[in-house]
Each structure stands twice: as C-alpha cells, then as structure tokens.
C-alpha cells in the first residue's frame, strides 16, 4: 500500500458522509415542499368541497291567478312581468302563520332564494295550464340557510353573534322536521353565470370566458411562435445585427411583468385599434403577447435539439429547406414545442394581472357565447368571489380554485398524451 492509497482511504469516509448529507438535504427539501402542497390542497379541498352541494327547500305553492294578476289567456309578456314572489311569500306565510314585524317578515321571505320567483316564472310560461293549481317544488335556499345547513353557523353562539336568529332557527328546524330541506349536488355552480347572490352564482360564465380566451390565445400564439422559432433557427441569417436584436428582445420579453402586457393591450388594442374591452378576444390578444416568448424559447430549444444528421440526410436526398422543416424538423421537435405551448397556456389560464387592465375584471352575469361577448375568466372570478362579503362565497372561491386546478390538470394530461403520441425514438 503506497502513500496515495492511504491518503485516499483516509478521505473516503468524509466523502461518503458529504454525499449522504447532500442526499438528506434533497429529501428534506422535497418533503417540505410536498408537505406544503398537501396543506394547500387540504385547505382548498376542505373549504371547497361543501360548495358542490346546495340546500334546496320544498314549498307548496298555489299559483293563484288573482294574486298574480294573470290567467291562462294572458300574453307571454304579462306572464313574464307578473309578481311570482308574492306567491312564494304567501306559501311561506301559510306555512309559518303569525310572523309579525317588517324584519321578521323579510327574514321569512329570505328563506328561499330570489331565484325561486324566476324558476316559477319559467315553469308557468312553459306550461300556463299550471295557473290556478297547487304545486310542490324544490327551490334554492338562501345562502344563509345553506351555510347553516352545512354546519358553518354554530347554534351554541349567543343570538347577537349569529347571522341566523332564533326565530329563523325555529323555521329551519320545522322545515327539516317536515323533510322540506335537502342538500343536493350544486348544479347552479356549473350552469349559471356570476351573481351577487351566492346561491345563484355559477362558474359557467368564467369557464366559457376562459375557454374562448384560451382558444384565441392558442390559435394566435402557437402558429406565430412556431413560425418565429423555425425562422430564427433555420432560416435567419447568422451574425446579423437585426436577428440578434430580435433574439435579445424575445428572451427579455419572457421576463416582463405580465401587467405590462395588460397596459400595452389597453393602449394599443383598445385605445388605438378600438377592440371591445372585457371580451375574450382582447384577453386572448393580450395573453398571446405574454405566452409568445415562452413558446418561442421552448420551440427554439426543441428545434435546435433535432439531430442535424436527420436534416443532412434529407438535404442529401434532395429535400428543400421547407420540406426538411415540415417533414423532419418540426415533427421531431413537436413534443418539445407542445410542452412549451402547454406551459405557456397554463400560465395564461392562471393569469389575472393583465386582464385587470383590459376590463375583464367586470361583473358579468351573462354566459358569453363568443369571443365578442363581455366575459370574465376563472382566475378573475376567483379574485372577485374572494372579495365578496357573503359567507357562502368563501367555499365557492375554493370550489372555483378546484375547478381551475382541474382544468390545469386536464391540460397537462392532454400535453402528456400528445407528447407520447408524437415522441419517436431513434
């Protein structure tokens, strides 16, 4: 055994210890991040899951022609503007006789959502034969009742600290005893647009807005970015001052705060080109600006990594540069390009800041039908709901986050499937 061997042997234990420590750091940091992720998911899910259920109230309503002031021969307009809330109020009063005082009467009316009257209206217009008869319907419960039914309001609290007063509790208990309260799956959350009333508020407007916005973003940014990347990689002259400037700019654009793109969209698209604000079109245009650098950089890296031997083989056989690009380079680069695109789109899907600048933060109750309709998007909807004072919006905010996360997971899944499909081995 010579000197070197003993020196090496002496140092070995230290080296291995260092390796073990390094591995430990990795495990620790991974566990910490995993823990945080779990905490985050747990809070979101535990808060949001109740929002997928909604309390309904069963009422026996008499569609009194006199009270409504219409009959079977009335025009649709007259039927539309009749006061259906009176019928509902009467039905509640019959169920709970002897309620006195303005405040208590209002509280009684507020057991069911305002949408009950609209429900009734739609039913009557669809079938005027109902007029004059007595019917039993399930109506949406008001948000306070819903929150109480989900156990978020403590009965044991003193009355003045409770949103539900003692007399309301009495009504609710009576309704429960008669099996007139029931929790069902909250379809409103997925079929309605936004509303100031939590029980009527839904995500459909925001989901459709996001879908249209993403569609515009994808249709614009993918072809432009891939074309730009392909040009810069395969056709642009090397060592050209202009090409260098363009490259520097694209790389720096990826680091520009997103709100700046919103300001740009406001100044250029809205003020100069006069594109209607708050629409998925303008949102898509702004988000395109934001995602372009991401996709271009990913596409360039991906195109660059296509083995030159494949391109040479095609050129050697007499393929033109265009044919090489479309038959070999792009198909082989496609997995990477798609990954970049999905990353960019996921970023855009979760983006709020630039959309605030172009009016997509507005309260939009209608579900948009196209890219020209005013709309909002999911992250903005989450922001709006989290800002609302009603207790029932807290769980809906978490539910909206869950839906957004669901869409992100879906997009990633889609990306993985596409990548697997396009991936080729050599």
């Amino acid at each position: 055994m010579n000197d070197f061997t003993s020196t090496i042997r002496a140092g070995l234990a230290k080296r291995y210890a260092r390796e073990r420590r390094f591995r430990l750091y990795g495990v620790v940091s991974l566990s910490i991040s995993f823990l945080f992720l779990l905490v985050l998911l747990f809070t979101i899910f535990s808060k949001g899951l109740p929002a997928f259920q909604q309390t309904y109230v069963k009422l026996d309503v008499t569609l009194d022609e006199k009270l409504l002031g219409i009959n079977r021969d009335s025009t649709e307009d007259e039927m539309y503007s009749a006061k259906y809330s009176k019928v509902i109020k009467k039905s509640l009063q019959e169920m709970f006789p002897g309620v006195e005082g303005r405040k208590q009467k209002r509280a009684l009316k507020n057991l069911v959502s305002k949408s009950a009257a609209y429900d009734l209206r739609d039913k009557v217009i669809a079938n005027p034969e109902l007029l004059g008869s007595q019917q039993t319907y399930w109506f949406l419960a008001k948000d306070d009742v819903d929150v109480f039914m989900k156990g978020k309001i403590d009965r044991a609290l003193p009355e003045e600290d409770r949103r539900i007063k003692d007399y309301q509790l009495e009504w609710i208990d009576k309704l429960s005893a008669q099996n007139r309260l029931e929790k069902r799956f909250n379809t409103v959350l997925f079929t309605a647009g936004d509303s100031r009333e939590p029980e009527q508020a839904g995500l459909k407007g925001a989901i459709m807005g996001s879908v249209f916005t993403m569609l515009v973003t994808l249709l614009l940014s993918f072809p432009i970015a891939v074309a730009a990347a392909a040009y810069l990689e395969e056709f642009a002259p090397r060592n050209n001052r202009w090409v260098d400037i363009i490259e520097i700019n694209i790389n720096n654009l990826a680091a520009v705060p997103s709100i700046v793109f919103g300001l740009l969209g406001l100044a250029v698209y809205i003020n100069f080109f006069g594109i209607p604000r708050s629409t998925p079109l303008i949102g898509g245009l702004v988000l395109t600006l934001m995602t372009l650098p991401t996709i271009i950089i990913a596409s360039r890296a991906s195109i660059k990594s296509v083995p030159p031997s494949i391109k040479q083989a095609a050129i050697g056989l007499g393929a033109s540069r265009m044919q090489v690009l479309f038959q070999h380079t792009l198909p082989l680069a496609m997995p990477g390009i798609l990954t970049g695109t999905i990353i960019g789109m996921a970023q855009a899907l979760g983006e709020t800041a630039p959309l605030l600048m172009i009016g997509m933060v507005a309260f939009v109750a209608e579900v948009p039908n196209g890219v020209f309709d005013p709309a909002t998007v999911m992250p903005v909807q989450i922001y709006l709901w989290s800002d609302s004072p009603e207790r029932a919006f807290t769980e809906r905010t978490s539910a909206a986050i869950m839906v957004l996360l669901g869409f992100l997971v879906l997009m990633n899944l889609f990306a993985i499937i596409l990548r697997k499909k396009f991936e080729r081995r050599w």
Partner: protein
Amino acid sequence: MTDVLGTLPGMPTPDPLESGDHKPAVTSRDEFDVEISGTVGVPFVDKPKMSSRNCDVFYADKQAIFDVNLDIGNNEIIAMIGPSGCGKSTFLRVLNRMNDTISICRVTGEHTLDGDDIYGKNQDPVLLRARVGMVFQKPNPFPKSIFDNVAYGPRLHGLASNRSELEDLVESSLIKAGLFKEVKDDLLKPGTGLSGGQQQRLCIARAIAVNPEVILMDEPTSALDPIATATIEELMDELKENYTMVIVTHSMQQAARVSQRTAYFHMGYLVEVNDTNKVFTNPEHKLTENYITGRFG
C-alpha cells in the same frame, strides 16, 4: 458564432458543423514539413463524370481547401484519404453542394457534373442532390419505418406514380443494398431499430432509391464493426457496376480494397492522385509515403 441564445444557460449547444468550426488542423510535426507544390500523379481522366478546377473553400476567413483540381471518372470508386482536418470531407461536400447549408462557407472554382456547372445559376441544388446522393459517417435513418425511409426520396421527387411502383422501387433498392433478405418481413418496423451495419445499408438503399449517378460516402464504415464493414465493402463493389462512387475513409486498407483511384489530401491541399495500387505501393510524393507507411496519421 456570436449567437445570443447560445450564451443563455440551458440552451443546447449548436452542432459544431452548423457553427462552422471545422476540425482543427493537425499540429506541425517533422514529417509534415515537406513542401507541397501542386498535385502530383494523375488527377485528370478522359470523359470525367465530375470534375473540379481551382477549387477553394473558405469558412468565413479561414481557407479550408487550396486550389484542388480533380476529375472523377465514370463508374469508378475514388477514395479520399488523409489526416483529420485535411479537407477531404469538405471537398466531398462541395460535390453535392452540401456546403450550401453552412452559411459561412464559400466555395469557388469550377465544378461540373457531366459538363454542367454544379454551382451555375441554372443548377438547382435539389436536382443536383437527387443526381449526387450521399451516405454519411453516422448511420442516420429517419425515425420512420424501413419502408418509409427508402420511399422518402422517391416520394419527395414523385418518382413512383402509384403504391405498387413505389413498393417495387423500395424492394429493388433494398435488394441492391443487400438488406432485403434481412428486413423483408419487417418493412413497417422503425428503421432505427436495426443494427448499425443494417442502418448504414438502409441509408445506402435510401440513397440509391432515387437512382443517383454518383454516390458520395463520407466515412461510411467508421461507426461499424469489421463484419458490417466487410458487408458494406462488398456492396460497394457490386454498386460500382452502375454508380460512380467517391468515398472518404480513414482506413487505408479500405481505400486499398475498394477503390480504383486514391487521392491523398493534406492540410487543404490535394497532394497526390494515382491508381490505388500505385499510391499504396509506390507513392510519388513524400507526404503520401509518410502517411501510408504510418509515420503519422
């Protein structure tokens, strides 16, 4: 190349070929200090298939090839030998204008194929590359099926009018490349799944599917084992009947086995061209002798 992206972390480094840094020249040694004064031997033949006169090639400011004059005869195999960085591959790529793909590369001189100017205004590089095929050092089949690999050229140029014609063409090309027996049941399997030697024969089949007149081979066997090499050499011998071939090789034994004529390149100069027998038994130039006797290289 002062590419901005190249300086960013995480970006793949560009292919050295694309960047234009050609292989470093051999460092000076005593055996090298022999004066080169023009080409010795017989660089010209009667009725050449291809010919080059006063060929200079520059990579940006660096000159890689100095005044090369060479003829390539019909249906012959000419071997190009020489140490790394001597310009033999660069010269090969002059013949089918592959150097066009390197933006900083500049080629001067007169180059003809059957008397037509290769670099002339009327010459279409696509047509030229269909007439002058190429096989590369590293087997580079497309990540497609064996059939699609061979069918790529004919499809590209519209050489088969229907499916059965295409199938015939693919089959005959594979037969000529000596690969058909081995793959006839696996035509739809990926070409990249073959062994190295089979892949290289697939590349040869792909090159001859468009029926070129000249086939350029850039060290076609340097990535293969001796058995696969022997197969390819036999194949070249058979192909000689119909094609003119130019082969760049580092193996002097290979040059001696397959070629009729041999050209020795050195530091960008064409030093000697002679019949292969003569080059390997009785070289005219001192440098050639030093190289083939293994004093260097």
